[in-house]
């Protein structure tokens, strides 16, 4: 048994014992029979929605951080925890049991201009090896943790995030400096013209300080981070094969989230959120967004766009987005590109880019 075959089992074949091959990227386009549907006008609830949603098929906790070391070098750090179910939870799960239908996967990475480290952990649910809870907030897999600090330094929540892998690791102290931001229509984020959607909110106002270890070197770092929470039962249409997702923090204090979901004929379903410095949001519909790759790089045998032109005329945005490290490839069971980026042009920004399905 290879770890790969396990992942194919857990993710690609997903819920359908009868479906041999999943549809969409990582099976996210599979049908969601039995699971709870994502519907508009379901109010996002805090802090409850920081925790798990056992009736939904998939969800994730996602932190990306742009960091600068004391010597001026730039780094990116990623902490991700996925929860996937092969069956909807029919009853309240007992504590301390081995789940036969819930699986967890953690990804962690550190990116510098020269190197990219990534690691992966997998676990079954129920037994406590991996999980998430909302009060106080804690998400974990083995000894990777993303947890709310019990002792707060101010009124805003503070977290500690840590993970490690071969030749890298990090411990980051994170303090929230702004409100939580809901994407789409009050958190209902449409993903395709056919109506696939997810619940999606972010905290883009996170200040970070901490240490990272790279190749035996221990560095003090500081910077900013972005937290995403998203859950769904069928977030992709069956013909959608991947996405390009951007999170940017402008020097002026505004933030921008935008994504394009590519289908088999390379048509992109675009959407975005414009976030003011105090957390006010404006939904950006697809037609308002111009998203164009301008340079490709050969990475892991694939042709991956590493430079993008982004134009949002309504916001006078005309920027070029480039990677800190072209080779930010996650060599995990399901591989994808995820790394820090900088934007130049009409506006200057730093942020993260995630590209799947290449």
């Amino acid at each position: 048994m290879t770890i790969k075959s396990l992942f194919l089992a857990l993710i690609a074949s997903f819920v359908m014992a009868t479906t041999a091959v999943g549809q969409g990227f990582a099976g996210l386009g599979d049908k969601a029979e039995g699971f709870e549907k994502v519907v508009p006008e379901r109010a996002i609830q805090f802090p409850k929605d920081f925790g798990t949603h056992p009736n939904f098929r998939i969800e994730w906790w996602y932190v990306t951080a742009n960091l600068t070391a004391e010597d001026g070098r730039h780094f990116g750090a990623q902490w991700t925890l996925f929860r996937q179910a092969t069956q909807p939870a029919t009853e309240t799960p007992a504590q301390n049991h081995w789940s036969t239908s819930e699986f967890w996967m953690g990804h962690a990475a550190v990116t510098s201009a020269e190197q990219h480290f990534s690691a992966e952990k997998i676990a079954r649910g129920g037994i406590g090896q991996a999980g998430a809870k909302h009060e106080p907030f804690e998400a974990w897999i083995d000894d990777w943790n993303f947890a709310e600090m019990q002792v707060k330094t101010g009124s805003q929540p503070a977290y500690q995030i840590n993970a490690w892998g071969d030749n890298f690791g990090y411990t980051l102290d994170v303090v929230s400096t702004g409100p939580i931001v809901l994407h789409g229509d009050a958190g209902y984020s449409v993903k395709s013209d056919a109506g696939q959607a997810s619940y999606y909110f972010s905290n883009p106002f996170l200040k970070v300080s901490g240490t990272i270890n790279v190749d035996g070197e221990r560095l003090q770092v500081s910077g900013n981070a972005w937290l995403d929470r998203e859950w769904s039962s069928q977030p992709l249409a069956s013909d959608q094969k991947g996405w390009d997702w951007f999170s940017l923090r402008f020097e002026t204090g505004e933030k921008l989230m935008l994504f394009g979901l590519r289908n088999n004929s390379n048509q992109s379903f675009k959407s975005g959120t414009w976030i003011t410095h105090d957390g006010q949001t404006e939904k950006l519909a697809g037609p308002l967004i111009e998203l164009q790759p301008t340079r490709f790089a050969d990475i892991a045998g694939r042709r991956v766009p590493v430079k993008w032109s982004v134009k949002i005329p309504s916001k006078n945005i005309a920027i070029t987005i480039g990677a800190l490290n072209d080779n930010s490839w996650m060599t995990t069971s399901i591989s994808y590109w995820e790394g820090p980026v900088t934007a130049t042009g009409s506006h200057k920004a730093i942020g993260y880019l995630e590209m799947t399905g290449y």
Partner: protein
Amino acid sequence: MTRSLTNTHASEQAGLLVVAHALFSHWRRHKIQAITLVVGLASATALWTAVQALNSHARANYAAAAATVEGVNRPALVSNEGTAFDQRAFAALRRAGIDVTPVIVGRFLHQNTVIELTGIDPVTNRNGTFGSTGSVEHTALDGQQMLAFIQPPGVLYASTDTAVQLEAYFSSQRIESPPKVVARPDLTNGMAIGDVTTVQRLMALEGRLSKLLLPASAPAELVDLPSPWNQTLRLEEAAQQVDLNGLTDSFHLNLTAFGLLCFLVGLFIVYSAIGLAIEDRLSSIRTLRICGVSRRRLLGLMIVEMTGLAIIAGSIGVVLGYFIASLLLPDIAASLRGLYGARISGSLSLDTSWWVGGIAISVLGVLAAALGGFFRVSKMSLLEFKGTDAWRAKQNKTITIKATLALVFLTLALISYGFGQGLMAAFGVMAGILLAAAFLLPLLLKAFLAIGLRFASTPLSRWFWADARQQLTGLSLALMALMLALGTNIGVSGMVSGFRDTFDAFLEERLSADLYLLAASKNQGRAIAAWAAGQSEIEAVLPITGASSQIGGQPVNIAGFEDHASYRDTWSFLEATHDVWDRTVSGGSVLVNEQLARRYTSWVNSTISLETAAGPQVFTIVGVYSDYGNPLAEVRMVNQSVEANWPDATQRRFALITSAGDQVRAAIISEFDLPGSQIINQAALKSFSRGIFEKTFTISDALSGLTLGVAAIAMFTSLLALSSARISGVAPLWAMGVARKKLAFYELKKILLLAILTAVAAIPLGIAITWCLVAVVNVEAFGWRLPLHLFPSQWAIIGLLGLLSALVAAIYPALKLQKTPPALLSKVFANDH
């Protein structure tokens, strides 16, 4: 032939093709010689290739299998009581950064058979190996299989037999939604594997785990357990596999010894075959030279010819060797499967390196063998008188050279023995002895034949002995090859049988009781002993205590035993007092192993001072026993002495005497939830060990047979090459009135005589080889010496096989002689017609 070549129009400027045609036409005229040469070369290459192939395949598989075993024998965390523990330990340890994976083991009895269910978590059991009693490798499961394995009702993988038993059990017990049972032939009988949830549900062990496996690579002693688990769990080191190493090493040794033998025999065969082929053509080569073909051109052509032959024969040999190896491979795969319980690839791929190696050895061997012939051709006098062959002068010269070489090799062997170190030196001793014996053979045979001649009175018997002596020249290489084959066969099978006997006796001694069990704790041990005392089918329960002590600061193991007939009857001693048992039982006197006796030169009636809880105590040695494979010094005494001197001695080990081993074992397993690996049925263990040995020996035997076969081919080739010369040798006798039939019979008798003499000479060589293997090679390889056992019946069998192969080789040439047309014989005398 000479006539036709004389007519060949060849001059200094003669076309290469004409000369080549003249030279190579020999093979067309002597098809049988060509065939035998190719067959001889091909079979030597085949044997070489086969051994190389088997050796490398076995080694590659050892590496793979050993890796698998390491995966299985991982250190683990178990509860202090040896019982199942709360599974919350798993997540707690994982969250503390300790890379553990859970195992739950449950056992139940079904129709007097214990079935052990092992539950695992495939998500964290990443290296894909697990198991408890044997070792199991489960190959990749695809996505659907993985989900089926995890999701209710789950899947149990079991051996074919056990799968049937499981199905029967589930239906007889009316188990609700039983797991799907899938037969997997690679699994050990009596065990099944499923998801941790499946086994917990079936065995009603929800929430419990038996052990947490640690990564094999992790430094287990550094594992820092979080509270409260540091109070309840303890580290169990990976299982020791001492016996396995001994067995695999002996396997290696066998193959290595055979590799050496095949190389030597092959060299002799190639040398003899090529030498004769050149000898046979000397006259035609002379004619070519007289006709004006230059020496350089002739030698160049011969090198091309020999290389071509070697490539053809080598290629055939490689393919042949591949088939031999693939025929033997199932046995090797089976013995490795026996050794490791792991799946070994049973298929062989024809490596490029074998092609290159096989053909290279063929070419090198041929060219080396032909060197003498090339030399003769280049030094050849063009006017050599083809009259009475000066055979005696030539024979005396070659025998003297060979005897000198024998002395050189013997000296090298002695130097290697006296000053060399390590396994290579040990093999150097063996190679030196083999070569020395081979090169001494012609001298010995000649001397013996001279004695025979002295005592022969009738003219034909005198001719018989005298002629045998003359034929020695042509046959000596084949006879040397035969002696090497016989000697090594006798030597290796002597070593192997001696090893087997020793091992059997050792097992008999050490496993004199029927069941051995290791309780999880002292308390459980007491409970089992108490229970066993009440069982009618258990005759005796013999506790085996254990302690560690020191002699002068060096560690020594203390093993206690209960006075019982089973010990008195089976134990044998290297040295003991006549009242050894009585004195041991009365206390104060002890038994020590050979290692201790040698290390401290403390034999019977001397005393040793052991560290005890109450300070140093002096004990008298009354017996010394052999203890193969144990590197440690060991002292045995009665349990009471152990407990009195070392109060904290372990008391978890028991020997049970019973005639119903399997039932008692099953009963104890189900009664006390003892892991199957902790209670061993010695009959099963013994037959398991012997089975492995037998399979290893099958390969040795097959290779022995093949080696003898190749020696027979060498003999056949030599005889056939000599057969044309024989006609002029026997023609005068025929003219004097000895019938062809009688002459043929004498020819056969002569070969048999030479073969018998060779076989007799091979016996001391075989003993020397056995000695070399047990007293030199084994000591270098394992650090202890095996006793030298002699097996005369084996010599007889191998000797008879040697005679048989010589007979088979000699029959055709003898028949050919008998059927020689008179015209051909009388041609010998003809001046004209």
